[in-house]
């Protein structure tokens, strides 16, 4: 794999066809809602270009978030509002999807777009690629 940063969708739509069946697909979550495991280091609320790798076997109750940039009325009561890990587990149990990725990923709030584009996103994408999900669901805050 080339070591240079991956380009985002400035010039084209990054479309990858989905092959296979949803009922057999392993789904990975990637969120920008500053979600982390309760035992992981907090995100810096004013700006943080790091990301957290989240254990895909854990329920939403194992996670928290560090943010003051979106409305928390929902997530204070139910983290599935931005990080639907419990719903994914239920869909897998009902065989509506094939399974849940062993890892999910979360970024924090940041306006350092260049660093995100040149460092954070390429590193995150490499981690997602190692997990080899059949599809990724992206959610914001």
């Amino acid at each position: 794999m080339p070591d240079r940063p991956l380009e985002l969708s400035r010039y084209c739509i990054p479309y990858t066809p989905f092959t296979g069946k949803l009922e057999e697909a392993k789904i990975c979550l990637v969120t920008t809602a500053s979600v982390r495991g309760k035992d992981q280091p907090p995100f810096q609320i004013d700006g943080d270009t790091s990301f957290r790798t989240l254990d895909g076997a854990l329920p939403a109750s194992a996670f928290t978030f560090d943010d003051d940039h979106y409305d928390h009325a929902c997530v204070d009561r139910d983290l599935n509002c931005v990080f639907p890990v419990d719903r994914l587990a239920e869909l897998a149990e009902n065989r509506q999807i094939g399974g849940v990725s062993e890892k999910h990923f979360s970024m924090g709030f940041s306006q350092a777009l260049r660093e995100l584009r040149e460092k954070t996103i390429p590193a995150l994408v490499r981690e997602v690629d190692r997990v080899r999900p059949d599809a990724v669901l992206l959610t914001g805050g």
Partner: protein
Amino acid sequence: MIGIPTVLITVEPEESEQARPPRALCPNGFIVGHSLGRPNDPNLQKRILMDALHLLVEPPQLGQVIIREYQ
């Protein structure tokens, strides 16, 4: 690296369209922090989630955010 299919759930369709997502769903009327609808409403959350995931197997509408009503 081989591409991985993605689908986005967004409550800011105008902002998201600027990034030209390959597949995107907007549950209309919900604000930021409510991408999956309402707290402790697993049926609604699963409907939105499944609608988003179904975009993976539906004909592509590249760069568009599909807006649907749930309320």
